[in-house]
């Protein structure tokens, strides 16, 4: 059964989703969803633990590699799968109370089914070695996330979901066009096979167009600065649980697909030397970091504030990727992981506020530090991680990014990065000030502390940002192994 592990990651949630529609019992479905999510997490962890024996490939239906669909597991995909499924599991453990309040009871089993489908899509994007499959899984995760977002309580939720749908579909279709042109030139859809055949058609205009379409398509999906417009509304009006999950994972998986695109299919030489994509990426990410962070400062809704911060944080990941050396790529991958934890944790805190206070406007949160001390403290810790204070996960990735920028002698980038962290201090501090040092609003005065069932998962995630801030073997260590294998540098020994 061990050799069947790669497919189990996909099949378990994929089969569970329709099963839950058949069952339809709210409580039972909730229990099973949690079981399924944790099982998938277990499978992903065991896949990652087998990575020291080399990458695994799995042929669907037993069809040999370039003809059939292959699932590939290497350090990078296993790593991304572990944190996607892990956060999926922990968010669903945290979910029941919040879902109970925010989503109509009759929709619960459908909600959990969509949640699992979204997870299936995201995991599938990580594991598949077939380019068209990436598109299909991208659409599975996108369609289910549109549906999930539209479940928000306010009337703006469907509108936000529709905007996301339109922009997201345009992005996915761009990606599809790129795949088509690539297929036309190489005659294959298998990523490794394309990489082998691409030399023969290198430099043709079709390849350039294909690359451009795929890049822009993925940029839309990962909400890179000028293409981020769908993100703030979608995150703000979605139900809290959905925001936790999507904010923590969806954009990261798109970043992962982008890394694959550049480092596996097209080579970094093509993207960064023949094309000035590295400079473009650097410019976009730096502008994005500053504009989005500045926008975050002026928000009056705590969810929207975090959403803008997410746009800024994507910039850091791209900055690392654009450096195209081991240090930068390691920093980018580590930041994917760390930011998933931090942002997942912070949105979980926001979910606690939403449950007890009922409003997410900053003015209604005033003084919540007294009535909801544990929740507010979680915000402080998570916020420190977002800023990148030493001993937190955010520091590790920013430190890696900084050192690799300095090793490339990109002084302005390093300075701008430090300055941008100050912006993060401003928007995090604004919330802290409101929580602790403002006269209490009447909503916050009567609020109770969030229930333990939500606080414990929140603290697990927030606590892990501290753990991974001090102990980086399993975050930066694995990211480095992944970066080395992507850049074709042979690695000796295990994870270290």
């Amino acid at each position, binding site marked *: 059964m061990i050799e*069947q592990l790669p497919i189990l990651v996909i*099949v378990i949630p*994929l*089969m569970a*989703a*329709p*099963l839950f529609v*058949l069952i339809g019992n709210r409580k039972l479905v909730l229990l099973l969803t949690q079981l399924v999510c944790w099982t998938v997490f277990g499978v992903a962890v065991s896949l990652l633990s087998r990575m020291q024996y080399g990458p695994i490939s799995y042929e669907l*239906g*037993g069809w040999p590699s370039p003809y059939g669909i292959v699932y590939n597991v290497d350090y990078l995909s296993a790593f991304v799968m572990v944190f996607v499924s892990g956060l999926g599991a922990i968010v669903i453990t945290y979910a029941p109370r919040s879902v109970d309040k925010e989503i109509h009871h009759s929709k619960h089993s459908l909600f959990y089914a969509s949640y699992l489908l979204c997870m299936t899509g995201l995991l599938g994007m990580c594991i598949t070695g077939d380019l068209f499959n990436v598109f299909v899984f991208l659409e599975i995760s996108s369609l289910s996330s549109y549906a999930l977002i539209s479940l928000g309580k306010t009337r703006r939720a469907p509108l936000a979901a529709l905007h996301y749908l339109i922009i997201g579909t345009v992005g996915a279709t761009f990606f599809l066009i790129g795949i088509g042109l690539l297929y036309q030139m190489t005659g294959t859809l298998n990523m490794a096979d394309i990489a082998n055949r691409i030399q023969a058609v290198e430099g043709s205009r079709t390849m350039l167009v294909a690359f451009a379409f795929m890049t822009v398509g993925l940029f839309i999906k990962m909400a890179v600065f000028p293409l981020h417009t769908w993100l703030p509304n979608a995150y703000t009006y979605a139900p809290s649980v959905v925001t936790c999950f999507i904010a923590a994972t969806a954009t990261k998986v798109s970043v992962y697909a982008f890394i694959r695109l550049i480092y596996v299919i097209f080579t970094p030489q093509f993207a960064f030397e023949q094309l000035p994509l590295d400079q473009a990426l650097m410019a976009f990410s730096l502008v994005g970091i500053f504009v989005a962070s500045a926008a975050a400062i002026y928000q009056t809704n705590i969810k929207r504030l975090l959403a803008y911060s997410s746009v800024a944080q994507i910039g850091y990941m791209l900055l690392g990727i654009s450096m195209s050396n081991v240090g930068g790529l390691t920093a980018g991958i580590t930041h994917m992981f760390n930011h998933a934890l931090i942002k997942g944790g912070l949105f979980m805190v926001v979910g606690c506020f939403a449950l007890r206070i009922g409003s997410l406007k900053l003015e209604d949160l005033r003084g919540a530090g007294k009535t909801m001390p544990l929740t507010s403290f979680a915000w402080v810790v998570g916020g420190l991680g977002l800023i990148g204070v030493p001993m937190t996960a955010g520091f590790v990735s920013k430190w890696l990014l900084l050192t690799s920028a300095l090793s490339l002698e990109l002084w302005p980038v390093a300075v701008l990065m430090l300055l941008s962290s100050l912006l993060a201090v401003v928007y995090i501090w604004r919330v802290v000030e409101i929580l602790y040092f403002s006269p209490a609003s009447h909503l916050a005065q009567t609020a109770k502390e969030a229930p333990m069932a939500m606080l414990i998962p929140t603290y697990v995630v927030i606590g892990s940002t501290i753990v991974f801030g001090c102990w980086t073997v399993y975050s930066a260590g694995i990211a480095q192994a992944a970066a080395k294998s992507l850049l074709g540098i042979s690695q000796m020994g295990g994870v270290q």
Partner: protein
Amino acid sequence: MNSFPIIRVITKLLIPYILLFGLYVQFHGDFGPGGGFQAGVIFAAALILYGLVYGLPAVHKVAPPKVIEKLTALGLLVYAGTGLACMLLGGNFLDYDMLNHGILTELPVALDFLPGDTPYHFLPEGQHLGIFLVELGVGITVTAVMTMIFYAFAGRERVTS
């Protein structure tokens, strides 16, 4: 539409043929053009036509929304279940070769009337059986989903007006 006898009669005449054609596309799909998706759409088209002409309550009686909702899930389960069965039989996911069962694949006697030595498959097995099951799952799901979409929109109108 109750006052248009021509439409009602033509619809009644057409529906059996649409359904039959749907079945043909479904089961011929593993030899020639066709397959579960197309068949599902054709099948759903029959139901939707019936609904359009005779009204939503009538088609609800033929295909109750509850049943249709469950069928949506069931079809997908048939598909994934086929893959899982292949896995449990020792192959990879969707490795239909594992579905070789050797039971009644060829009728032992009395097939002399077939031309030459045509391999006559009585019960499908292996790749053939796998494709058949998967397409069946797809067909069920697509029929159900298309009908469901129709119900969702047609039903909405009734509520708001």
